[in-house]
């Protein structure tokens, strides 16, 4: 217990140092924050601007889509802030420059240092925007207000953070062996986020099934959202399948960290 508290203090200290350094160049920080906010804003605006002309997306209203889109974006940005150190471009830069080797020399847990190595504060405005989109969805979709709804939505967001965090950890671990094929992970991370931002019944059956049964992305928010909206689940899945969804994330994260430990044992440095 004391160990955990010590690690937590250490993590907060490391984040504090990161935040101070990012605050040093104020204009640069504000422009970067606005730029990253605008990317999400433009993408969402493009969808919101065309919806009135079409009336909806495959039978889903703007409010219902905002629920899916906002939750996915919120979870992904929070995950990015938390797990940014494991993102393949970041970690492979540390591996190539040799600074990853110095992590191993320091008297602090390696994983903790990686966690704190890229805490990009400039993503905070994006969190607010994502939360606003999700809030619009919550108020404009026919959801039953109640403890069950709140619990399932919270679990869905936490599950998505774990799921995408796990993918980041796997992608980062792969950089110990190769830097080339890591781009394949982008299909799963950024592609996966985009995929689950829309109602998954718009995809062809094979694509939807791949991202339901092979890669359990549909369990993260699509099935819980269907359940809360009182819609039937696809492929005749039983109703409780929507509730086990949030467990998929922690399972992926646990597997990812098991892989990470194998990677760290294998790591030999680049000689720099």
């Amino acid at each position, binding site marked *: 217990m004391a160990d955990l508290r010590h690690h937590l203090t250490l993590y907060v200290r490391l984040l504090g140092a990161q935040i101070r350094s990012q605050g040093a160049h104020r204009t640069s920080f504000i422009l*970067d924050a606005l*730029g990253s906010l605008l990317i999400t804003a*433009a993408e969402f605006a*493009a969808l919101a601007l065309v*919806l009135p002309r*079409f009336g909806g997306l495959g039978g889903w209203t703007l409010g219902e889509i905002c629920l899916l889109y906002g939750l996915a974006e919120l979870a992904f940005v929070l995950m990015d802030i938390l797990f940014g150190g494991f993102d393949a471009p970041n970690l492979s830069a540390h591996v190539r420059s040799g600074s990853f080797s110095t992590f191993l020399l320091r008297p602090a847990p390696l994983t903790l240092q990686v966690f704190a190595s890229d805490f990009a504060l400039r993503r905070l405005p994006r969190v607010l925007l994502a939360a606003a989109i999700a809030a619009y969805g919550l108020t404009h979709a026919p959801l039953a207000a109640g403890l069950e709804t709140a619990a399932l939505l919270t679990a869905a967001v936490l599950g998505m953070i774990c799921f995408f965090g796990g993918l980041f950890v796997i992608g980062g671990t792969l950089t110990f062996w190769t830097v*080339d094929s890591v*781009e394949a992970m982008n299909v799963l991370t950024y592609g996966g986020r985009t995929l689950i931002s829309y109602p998954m019944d*718009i995809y062809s059956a094979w694509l939807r099934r791949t991202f339901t049964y092979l890669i359990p992305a549909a369990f993260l928010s699509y099935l819980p959202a269907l359940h809360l909206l009182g819609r039937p689940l696809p492929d005749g899945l039983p109703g409780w399948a929507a509730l086990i969804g949030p467990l998929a994330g922690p399972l992926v994260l646990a597997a990812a960290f098991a892989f990470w430990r194998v990677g760290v044992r294998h790591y030999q440095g680049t000689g720099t």
Partner: protein
Amino acid sequence: MTTMPAPPTGGHVSRLSRLALPLAVARLGFQRQFAYPQAALWGLITNSFFGLLRVAVLLALFGTRPQVAGYTPQDAITYTGLTQAFIMAFSLFGWFDFMRVVHRGEVTADLLRPASLLGFWAAQDAGRALGQLVLRGLPMLLIFQMVWGLNWPPGPLAWAQVTLSVLLAWACGFLFRFLVNCAAFWSPDAVGFGRFAWAVLGLGCGFLMPLAFFPDGVRAVLAWTPFPAMLNTTVELWVGVTTGPAAWAALGTQLAWTVALLLACRVTLRAGLRRLEVAGG
């Protein structure tokens, strides 16, 4: 910068040798794109996956409607294939090359060359764009053709107009990117400014959604910006949303924006170079 090298053959520079340098620069820019074939392959896979998702969203929007704002569902698929194919050639996700050169002070090496700075970078980017079009654009169109089938320009006139429009879209886009990169002369924080500009470009040029689907007010505002000339015009000519006299008017608008951006670039570049101070070392 005070020293400028004398022209190679004192006043009698033939037209051919004046073209030789930009052509050589363009050829190098072209060849450089083929250095990392594996990265190109993964990029193609990623773009195809996003193309797949974008097609699904557009087809779901159409539902059972046969046509919306001049686009049929098949046109919407063609739109997606074209925009995915042009991402790299038109650098739609951003371009910081000139900015980097200014920030590092390497721009002085560019200034020593017996060619205009803007012309040198235009030649380099033209080669780069053509390389990306061959390496990433054409395979992307081939994939779309095989999976969904594309609509193609109907005849020689349409092909000529589309080709002209692609060239103008590249020119317009390059000049806009160059202008944004010129911010580096004034600010060490130009990268953030650039990210801002690319986000606006993505929405305004019709990369995220066909501009024809936007509400009239938004389209009216965008019509006063150069962004549609950088992609949307080309797509509308290709799928046949713009035809007849309107097609020539659209090409004229692209040309007008190219000229306006060229002038803006030259003025900005001159002012920027006057400010330039390069640290020694």
